[in-house]
Structure formats: C-alpha cells, structure tokens
C-alpha cells in the first residue's frame, strides 16, 4: 500500500517505550544514590553453606563425560518420537511402520558414526 508507511498509529507505542526506558533509568539512578555500599571480605566471599570457601568453586570434569552426556541426551530425547508412534501406529497403518524404521535408521547412522569415531571408547 503506497503512502501507508508513516506509522502514526504507533505513536502510543513510542511514548510508552520512552516512558518505560526513563522509568528504568530513573529507578536505577535513585537506587544507586540511596543504597549503602559497605563491602567487607566476608560479604564479598562466595556463600558455601556458612563454611569458609575451600579451593576453586569449579572442578574440571574430564571431557569424556561431556561426550558421553551429549550422546546420551541426543539419543535419549529422540525417543520421544517413539511414544506418540506407539500409541497411534495401529491407526495409521503401514506408513507409520515404514516411517519409524526410517527414523530409527537415521539414528542408527548417527550411532554407527559415533562408534566408528570411537566416541564410546573410554581410553
């Protein structure tokens, strides 16, 4: 539609946008002036159930765990498609069976690939 590109109908949106941004800024500024800032070492230290923190908060897991976890997540979640299929396959007939075997064979390709790439090999 030629000529309809002037967004007069959206003036309220613009106004509410400006008001909202101003509101956020004003609130942050007020908070910044009013709040107390008295840091001391205990307050700044990470909370570990009341105990003084020991060592690094993050361990480094072996990467192998991640690989296994990734494979598990993918193959595990793909089975959600089996549930609706199992409920309805007798109503849908031959196509459902063909379709599901196609789907499973696609998963199998992934499985074979992971196997061949030695993703399951712990050592």
């Amino acid at each position: 539609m030629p000529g309809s590109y002037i967004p007069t109908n959206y003036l309220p949106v613009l106004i509410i946008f400006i008001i909202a941004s101003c509101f956020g800024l004003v609130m942050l500024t007020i908070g910044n002036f009013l709040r107390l800032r008295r840091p001391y070492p205990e307050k700044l230290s990470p909370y570990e159930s009341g105990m003084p923190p020991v060592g690094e908060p993050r361990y480094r897991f072996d990467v192998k765990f991640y690989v296994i976890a990734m494979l598990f997540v993918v193959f595990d979640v793909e089975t959600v498609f089996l549930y609706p299929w199992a409920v309805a396959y007798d109503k849908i007939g031959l196509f459902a069976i063909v379709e599901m075997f196609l789907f499973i064979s696609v998963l199998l390709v992934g499985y074979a690939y992971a196997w061949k790439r030695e993703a399951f090999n712990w050592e």
Partner: protein
Amino acid sequence: MNFQFPDLTPVLPEAFLVLGALLLLLIDLSIKNKNATAFISLVLLMVTGFTVYSTPSGVTFGGMFSVDAYSSFFKYIFILSAAMAILVSGRYLRWRNEEHGEYYTLILLSTAGMMIMASAADLITIYLGLELMALSTYVLAGFIRGEVKSNESALKYFLLGAFSSAFLLYGISLIYGLTGITRLNLVASAISESGLVDNPVLFMALLMFVVAFGFKVAAAPFHMWAPDVYEGAPTPVTAFMSVGPKAAGFAVMARVFLVALHSLQADWTTVLVPIAILTMAVGNIIALSQQNIKRMLAYSSIAHAGYALIGLITGTSAGISAMMNYLIIYAFMNIGAFSIVIILDKGRVPASSDRLDNFKGLAKTHPVPAFLMLIFMFSLTGIPPTAGFMGKFYLFMNAVEAGYTFVVLAAVFFSVISAYFYLRVVKFMYMEEPEEGEIPAASMSTAPVSITIVLAVTALAVLLIGVYPEALLAMAKNSALIF
C-alpha cells in the same frame, strides 16, 4: 481416522539429499582422500539439482510442504552456493589440517534444511527446516577447532541463532493460539475471517517474526553477530553462510509475510521500512572503517540484506521477483569475492591473513585475480555493466513503482557511500605498491582447479547477467507469480 499414504514425489529432492548426506557420512569413514568425498558431495548436489528441476509442483504432507516455482528458484540458489562453497573449500581446509569428510556432510545437510525452508507451507516445517540449516551451520562455523577465532565465531553464531529461533517459536505459538492452525494459507484465512487484523497479540507475533528473521538475514538492529561470525568462520563457510542462509531467510520471510500475514501488510511494512534503512546505513557506514577484508564483506553483506528487504517491502509479486533476482546475483558476486579472499589466504597465519593490505599492488603481482576482484567489487557497488547494477536497478524500479521513493533514495545514497569502501580495494590493487617484506600468497598462480572453476563461473555470471538480465528476470518473475 482415515490416514492416507502421503505423496512423496514433492519431497524427493530433499529426501535424496538427506539420505545421500547420511550415506556420505558413513562412506567417508573409510575414504582416505577427502577430495573424493568432496567429489561425491558435488555429484549428490548435481543430482539433487536435477531432481528439483524434474519434480512437478505439488503439495504434500497435508499441505505442510509445497513445491512451486518459487521454492524451486530458491533451491537452485542454495544448491549453487553449496556447490561453489564445496569447490573452494579443499585447499583452505588442507592448509589448516582440518580436512574432514564431515564438513561436506554438514554442507549438504544445511542445504537440505534451506530447501525445506523454501518449500515450507506450515510454521512447523519452517521451524524444522530452519533448525536443520542452523545447526549444521553452527558446526561449520567452528570447523577449524584449533583456532580460537573459529570457536568464538561458532559460539556467537550458536547463541544468537538459538536466541532468535526462540523468538520465532514464540511467534509461532502466538499465531497458533490465535488461529488454532499453523498452515500458512489457513492462518491467512483465519485472520481475515475472525477479524484478528487489529489484534495486538497478532502484532506481537509479527514483531517476533521480524526479530527472528531479522537475526537470520542479519538485518540491523539484529546484525551484531554477523561481523564476528563471518570473520572467525572458515572463509569458504563464510561465503556459504552469507549467501545460503540469508537467501533461505528471505524465502521464508516472503512466504510468512505475504501469505500468512497478508492482511497485516500495512503493519509489517511500517516495521520493515525503518529496519531496511537502518540496515543499509549500518552496513555501509561501518564497512568504511574495516581493515579486514572478511569483516568488510560481512558489513557489506548486512547492507545487501537491506537492499533485498526493499523488494520484500514493496509486497508485490514484481517486488519479490526483484528480490529473488537480487539474491541470486548477490550469491554469484559474493562467493566470487570470497573466492579471491581464499586464493590470497596464507594458511595458518591468522594475523596476516584476510588483511585488506594484502590487496596492495595485487594488479602487478597477480593481474588475473586482481581483475576478477575488480569485477566483483564493481558488481557489489552496483556499477554497470555488472549484474549488481541490474539487480539494484530492478529492485529500486519496483520500489518506486510501489510508492516507496524515499526508501529508494536512501538506498541510492548508501550505495554511493558503499562505493568508497568497495573501490578502496580496487585502489589498493591497482594504484598502490605491494607491501615491503610481504610474502606473496604462496600458490596464488597455482590456485587449485576447483577455485578457478568457481571464479570463472561467478565472473561470467556477473558479467552475463549484467548485459543480458532478461532471462534471469523472466525466471524470477515467473517464480514470484504465486504471490
């Protein structure tokens, strides 16, 4: 319940490509020479292209998947860009010791995702196609595992891509809640029948779609990821990413906005016009200050998304055809320009690779690549007699006819600005001396045959479309008739 076996002929190209890619993944495990894998993937793409050509128009899976001239046109763009990306990849990967067969499988799967997007006639199919494309491309962006830049590129692309697809899904869920349907044409009729046009939730859904697709095609203000991702990704992947997924984004955008949200045209033009102008402004202005050729081409790619958006904004069949025409021209000139960057590549020396200064004095040392780069830069600027000029000309003409003169004025203004940074490359090549102590790219004159083929094809296409655009334009017009 009466269930009928769906007609599988319309999905034949996609099915073939996906199965071929999966088989390739398995076969590759026992292939030592990765050139063979690349060759097989090229053959697969060629056969897919042929099946796209021979598949008759039709709708299947209960209307979720439709093959028409529009989708076929886009599928040719995807297959072409994938094939060219594969052709230019070999040496780049070899020099970085990352020559793995998975690369080709991923490109094929990404292409299949784009093809599904182009044919999608249902919001669910759009989402699935988009994710297949996106997930493969995330991995491709991080394919050079040892390089932090590549990792970082993949991570940014992944985070922002996933973020944007969440927006897409939220939009889909709103549309579904309002209309009770996800089929694009039925959404349109549901909107007009139940008088939802002024519904604010529908407008919300529209905004969600704009955000999601804006991210996918790298339109400002959703473009922040593009420069980093394009710079860090392997150059052949950048060439592929800046063409294929972008075109797929536009394919889906046109379908969603013109079919499903047809009655909201006044609203989405209101949203898209400022986005288009901002995109052209951001892309062209920031590109001026770039010192890295890939980064410059990334900003240029943002700017070109802005130009293509003009075709969408017109909302007419002619406008869409101009957009499609522009996208295929852009595919040729952009992949051509990136191929030159790949030729200049120096392997594992990231600090000196991709610098704009590498182009200094190129005309003296290597006249042929310099001349080809000149053609691509002229085309990207839009200087006749190159294809870039014709593409822009038809876009602007249609937009003026549809009454968007001021958008066209902005586009022309920013095109003039863009001449500065495109022609700076030309100036570097033809008017400056090669840098002192700079090692010339090792095997520039012995560039692999595959890259030579791509360069020949792209340069010829750019010149040919530039002087004789009628055939392509007629094809695009014919394909856009569905709107």
